[in-house]
């Protein structure tokens, strides 16, 4: 079993807490979240809408939008705590050492500037190079993300491009400063399935070649399972499980993770839980077998204002008892990682 914490992490998040400022006080959205990513490593943060994963992604760049604000913890990028930096210092880190791509490539690019200008800007804002040199590098970047005919595309406006092309432009922009960490917030969600695969393998290829660490935010386990090294499962603002990808799919410990995996359409997942894998082999032997219904997790994520005192998943959990309702389960070592559940490991050893 490998160590879940990389020996020399590029990015180390420690006890990060984010809350929304409301009239009735602070409403915690992310609580005491810790994780780290090593050079060239790809970590997925998985969870349902509203679990705080996108907020976490923005916090890594110091971009949490009001009324949200970071209420505690540290985000150490190459040893430096970004949360302690002022806006001016933070600006020099963003786009240079850590950069981000977003979910909606349609709205994430400025409609009145050419894509070339927008990529060049990422270079010119950080490095004292001439416009000519920046242009050369931009063309190389466009080529790098496999945009055909870069010289022509350079002068094109975003609305002339498809969603996949725009996401490639976003990736080129994010890589312009050769950052140590790339944060990808659901970058494939708005794209067609075939384009999704292309964008994913592009990100995977770039991190292998450049050693960029990737934090990949997604609600869809199946999409990333082939590429990521480790998976962090979030539920209602907390980390509930963090494991090496292979282990997680083979033997998920947390009931929520089990539910998430069972809710995935099969075939998309490379490594499947033991039981399911055996069944799919049976399906393959018997053509014409009726497809199984997807299992869904009953209930919904509790609202931020109505968080239960104990385990946030307890109201939806088949294993929940009094203990779960009273106390928040602390994270404990489990296999190649951590799990935060009172009952994990009861059916079999972890």
């Amino acid at each position, binding site marked *: 079993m490998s160590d879940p914490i990389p020996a020399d992490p590029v990015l180390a998040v420690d006890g990060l807490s984010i809350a929304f400022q409301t009239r009735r006080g602070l409403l915690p959205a992310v609580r005491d979240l810790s994780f780290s990513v090593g050079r060239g490593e790809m970590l997925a943060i998985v969870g349902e809408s509203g679990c705080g994963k996108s907020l976490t992604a923005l916090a890594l760049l110091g971009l949490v939008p009001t009324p949200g604000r970071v209420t505690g913890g540290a985000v150490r990028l190459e040893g430096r705590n970004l949360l302690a930096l002022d806006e001016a210092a933070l600006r020099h880190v963003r786009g240079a050492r850590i*950069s981000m791509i977003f979910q909606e490539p349609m709205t994430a690019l400025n409609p009145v500037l050419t894509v070339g200008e927008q990529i060049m800007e990422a270079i010119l804002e950080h490095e004292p190079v001439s416009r000519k040199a920046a242009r050369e590098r931009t063309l190389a970047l466009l080529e790098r993300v496999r945009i055909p005919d870069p010289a022509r595309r350079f002068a094109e406006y975003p609305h002339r491009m498809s969603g996949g092309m725009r996401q490639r432009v976003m990736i080129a922009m994010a890589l312009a400063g050769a950052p140590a960490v790339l944060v990808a917030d659901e970058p494939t969600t708005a794209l067609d399935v075939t384009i999704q695969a292309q964008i994913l393998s592009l990100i995977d290829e770039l991190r292998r070649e450049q050693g960029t660490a990737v934090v990949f935010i997604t609600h869809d386990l199946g999409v990333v399972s082939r590429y990521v090294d480790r998976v962090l499962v979030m539920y209602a603002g907390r980390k509930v499980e963090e494991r090496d990808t292979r282990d997680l799919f083979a033997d998920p410990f947390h009931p929520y993770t089990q539910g998430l995996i069972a809710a995935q359409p099969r075939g998309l997942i490379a490594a499947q839980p033991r039981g399911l894998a055996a069944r799919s082999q049976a399906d393959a032997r018997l053509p014409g077998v009726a497809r199984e219904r997807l299992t869904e997790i009953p209930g919904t994520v509790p609202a931020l204002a109505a968080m239960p005192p104990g385990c946030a998943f307890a109201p939806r959990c088949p294993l929940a008892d009094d203990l779960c309702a009273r106390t928040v389960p602390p994270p404990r070592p489990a296999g190649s990682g951590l799990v935060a559940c009172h009952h994990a490991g009861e059916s079999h050893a972890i």
Partner: protein
Amino acid sequence: MLTYLRRSAAQLVFVLLGIALINFFLLHLAPGDAAQVLAGESGAATPEYMEALRRQFGLDQPLYIQFLRYLGNLATFDLGYSFRQSLPVSELILQRLPATLLLMGTAIGFALVAGCSLGFLAARRAGKLTDTVISIVALLFYATPVFWVGIMLIVVFSVILDWLPVGGMTSVEANLSGLALVGDVALHLVLPAVTLGLFYLAIYARLMRAAMLEVYGQDFVRTARAKGVRPRRIAWRHVLRNALLPIVTTLGVQLGSILGGAVLVETVFSWPGLGRLAFSALFQRDLNLLLGILFCSSVVVVLVNIAVDLVYTLLDPRIELG
């Protein structure tokens, strides 16, 4: 581009036809005609004299004949004859048009530059003291009647401080020429242009602030911040250009209505422009002159709107003409 211009030219013809029709019949709905006003002013008139006047001006013809005749004249750029001023309408308009265009242009230019700057500043300091002060001042200008602002400015800057002339376009006593004349007109222009401009300035300041703040919430601004772009550059390069689009739209709409504002300001400052001419034409039932002025300003409005469309394409690459 050429296709667009050709199509707008074709549209222009129909628009002008519609304008001519509406103007003509609206004005004929008003009671009384030029013959009655003339007769009234001369104190007494026999019905025979009125008949003769009407025959002379073609006012005895059925309305549709009068309209067709009016259209025929328009087609040959003949705007008719002002029987009150005993001058061709086109000559009267051409005499007054430059003064009005100068006033309107200066007022709108002042309002645009100052209003947008204030709005820009307010948006960048949103929620701070600067923003509050700008918003309150803009609201004040917006809510104060134009003629009252004009009179107050005269009282302060002309009467009390004696910095600027009370009214008119040039100094009567001096016979200036060349650069001195330009300076003299500019001095006379300050108060009326500021008076007319303040109201529009308030609109642009409020609009600019709102548009900027809306653009600040867009995803691409977040992208720019994520790339580490300086806040100043984000404001100028990413936000401003996108925020200018609603400004241009409003500008197009307002250039049409500003003639209405010009009537008041020209009256207060005795500025020899089209607004005052229209005002007196209305009261003197000088139908030909009034029609001519309305028609001319309609043409200006239509042309301005075409220009606005063209400016759009410069600002926003997503909009394509054709």
